[in-house]
Structures are given as C-alpha cells and as structure tokens.
C-alpha cells in the first residue's frame, strides 16, 4: 500500500534523512523506532507532503505522491497525527474533531465517528465545549488522536501518540491501536515506548541517523540485540 523508497530529506541544506525505505501493506501495523533525531517524524512528514524529499520516491497505492500537496494526500486517505499535536487552540474540542472529518462528505458518517471517538476518550466528551488550548497536555494528545480517527483513513500515521499520556492511558492507547488494527485499519506508528509498540506490531523498522538500518517482525525485533542495547538500555 505504502512504499517509501530511499528518500533523502534536507532541512535548509542539512540532511535529516539520508536513505529511508519502508513498506506498509494493507491491514498491517508497522512501527518505526529510533533514537531522538533519527528522522522518524521527518519520514512521516515526507509521506504526508509536509517536506519534500530531494531524492527517492514515495508510492501510495501504486501512485507516486513524492511531490504531491498535503491536502491531496490526505484526500487519498492518509491521515497524520503529528507529534506536536497541533490542536486548533481557539476552537472547541468538538470543532477540532469535526475538522478531522473535513474531507468527509457524509454528515451521517461524521456523527458516527464522533460518537466513536467520544467512546474511546470520554474525557473529550466531557470537555467538548472547552477551547482546545486550555486542555491539559494529555487531553490534547487524546484530542489529536481522536481527530485522526474522524474519518476512516486508508493509512493512519501516528507520531508518538503516547507522549505525555499517563501510564494507564498508554496501556489503553496500545489496546486501542491493536483494536483498530483488528478493525482493519492500516497503521504506521512511531513510538518511544519501544517495548509496548513492538509487542503489538506486525513489523518494525529501526532508524538511525536518517537511515533505515534494520527491519523485521515486531516480536523478533524486540528480541534483537540492537533494540535491547540501543533503546531499552538492557
């Protein structure tokens, strides 16, 4: 479904990604792990069109989207929940969620998804009239994820969704993600909770200074020396 082939990305002439390749197949949950600054977020941004690779290609459903506009890519069914959350501060929680469904044309579906999100995060329902910027850090994270679930994306990309969530919610989050996968969502996940993420992942990629240096089945990776040493500090 998604095929990233040796992309290279620069920020103002300074390379952030040297050579990143990865693949996500229909229905899969793929996890990307890597140290801080290894280029995980940049990879997701390149896919969604937030930054443009200087070389390499990105294919989505056989179509090249390397240089496509973000809005078009989103309309093709790719949803991205950014690391920095990017809540629309002055808008209410509910307005934020409705914006998540901007590309959807069916009023009914939007209502359904809204209910679904409120079920997933009752906290949001409680606060649905509060302005986004006054939510606590964790609440904002829930809102960001909820907003990503307001349409049924072909590919859901989550960038460190557990950031700032309390342990209980982190556990729940991973449950939710597995649940979504079971529902048939295709998910590309970036996580620092390496262990939990790899446990539920089908496959994983390891990034190091802008390169995909390793890939494999989720559980296998978890056992591998690289992961143990570099991420878990065992």
């Amino acid at each position, binding site marked *: 479904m998604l095929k990233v082939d040796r992309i290279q990305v620069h*920020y*103002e002439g*300074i390379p952030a990604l040297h050579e990143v390749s990865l693949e996500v197949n229909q229905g899969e949950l793929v996890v990307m*792990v890597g*140290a*801080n*600054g290894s280029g995980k977020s940049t990879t997701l941004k390149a896919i969604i069109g937030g930054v443009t690779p200087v070389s390499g290609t990105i294919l989505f459903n056989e179509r090249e989207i390397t240089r496509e506009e973000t809005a078009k890519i989103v309309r093709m069914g790719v949803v991205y929940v950014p*690391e920095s959350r990017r809540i629309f501060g002055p808008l209410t929680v509910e307005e934020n969620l409705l914006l998540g469904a901007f590309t959807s044309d069916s009023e009914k579906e939007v209502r359904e998804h809204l209910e679904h999100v409120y079920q997933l995060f009752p*906290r949001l329902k409680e606060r649905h009239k509060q302005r986004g910027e*006054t*939510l*606590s*850090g*964790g*609440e904002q*994270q*829930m809102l960001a994820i909820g907003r990503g679930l307001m349409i049924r994306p072909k590919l859901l990309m989550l960038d*460190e969704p557990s*950031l*700032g*969530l*309390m*342990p*209980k*919610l*982190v*556990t*729940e989050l991973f449950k939710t993600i597995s649940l979504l996968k079971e529902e048939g969502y295709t998910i590309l996940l970036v996580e*620092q909770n*390496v262990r939990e993420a790899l446990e539920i992942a089908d496959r994983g990629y390891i990034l190091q200074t802008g390169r995909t240096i390793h890939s494999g089945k989720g559980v296998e990776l978890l056992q591998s020396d690289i992961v143990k040493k*570099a*991420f*878990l*500090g065992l």
Partner: protein
Amino acid sequence: MLEVKNLVKAFGGLVANGDISFELQEGEVLGLIGPNGAGKSTLFNCIAGYYKPTAGKILFEGKDIAGWPPHLVTREGIARTFQGMKIMPNLTVEENVMIGAFCRTNERQVAKKEAREILNLMGLTEFGKELPSGLPISVQKRIELARAIATKPKLLMLDELAAGLNPLETKEIIRTLQRFKEERKLTLFLTEHVMEFIMTISERVIVMAAGKKIAEGRPEEVARQDKVVEAYLGERYAKGR
C-alpha cells in the same frame, strides 16, 4: 524548604487544584504523578508564578511567594522547565544558557563562563554555537535543563522532562540530574508520566487526581495503592509489580 498550604486554583468554574497541601524538604526529590488533567502543571505554574492561586499559601524558605511574578520566584531560587519545551530559537545554545546565568550576575564574562561549564558538564559543548531549533528533542530538553540550572536554583521543578525520550535517553538524563543534584545541592520537584523515570529518582511521591491530592508516600508504597493503580497506573503496572 517549600510548603504549600491549602492551595486552590480555579479556572472559572473548573477547579484545577482543590486544596492541595504538602511539604518539601531541602535536598529531597519529590515526584508528582496523576492522571492527565489532574492539575499537576497547574500546580507547577502556581508555584512558579505563572498562575495566581485562587487561595492558599506557598511558603518558600518561610516567605509566602503565592502570587509573585515568575521572575521574582526564579530569583528567590526556584527554577523550572516546561511541559512542551520553550527554547529561545534565535539565540545559540550557549546564549540560551547564558541568559539563565545572568540571573545571578551582571557580568557577561561570568555568565559565559558559567554557561560553558554547565554545557560541558551536560556534554553539550559541541552544540554551543548552534541554534537550538534544528537539534533533536533530547538535546533541546537538556538545554532547557542546563538553562534552568544556570539560574543557580535551590529548588528545581521539572515538568515532564523525559516525555519523548526513549528508555536509554531517559536513563542518561536521570544520571545527569543526579549528578547535578549532588554537586549543586538541588532540591527536585518533578512530574512525569514515565514511571521508569519518576519511580527511580523520587524519594517520595505525591499522587493527584482531579485536582486533589489522593496519596503520598514512598514510590513503591504509592504504586501499590489500589486507588493509584486504578486512577493512574492501570492494570499493566499492577500486574508488573
């Protein structure tokens, strides 16, 4: 050293901190945990002067600093870092830290020396002349920490310093912190959702939920309490322990 008495902070109708009281001894490491939205950052903000408490007292070394503006609180000796960093993007890393050091000196040379020393201790010397915006989050977090330490605080408050770091990086930052704590005789007050961090470093933990303090004690004890598990930690941790 720090004594919070019956602190209340309300936003309109929403009570983010309802009657919080606790004490913090010199040299202690106190952890603060609690569900998202429990009011931890609000409490930090009240102490550091970013919010004016609705009611209650905040005694720091005997002085009631409740309602003081942030810069005076810092000058009294309380430094903080922010949840979601606030780095000064157009100043170099060294200048970021220098500005912290200026809190205690008027001499540029002194501030510069101090900044270099702290950067060196943190292993950040190589980034000194760079602008912080392009640096990885883990580095930015350390810069923020360095900057706070440069103000020569007695009490250092850290709001989710380890968020976004992987377990290895978390371990590193714990080590750095502990070193500074020893060398500079810091008292630490921190909040964190990463249990590996908070449970390792804290000597005592306060648990908040829905704006109230619900538990207090040594980390292992607190983590065993049912209400904490239920409100905050979740089953995974319950099982784990």
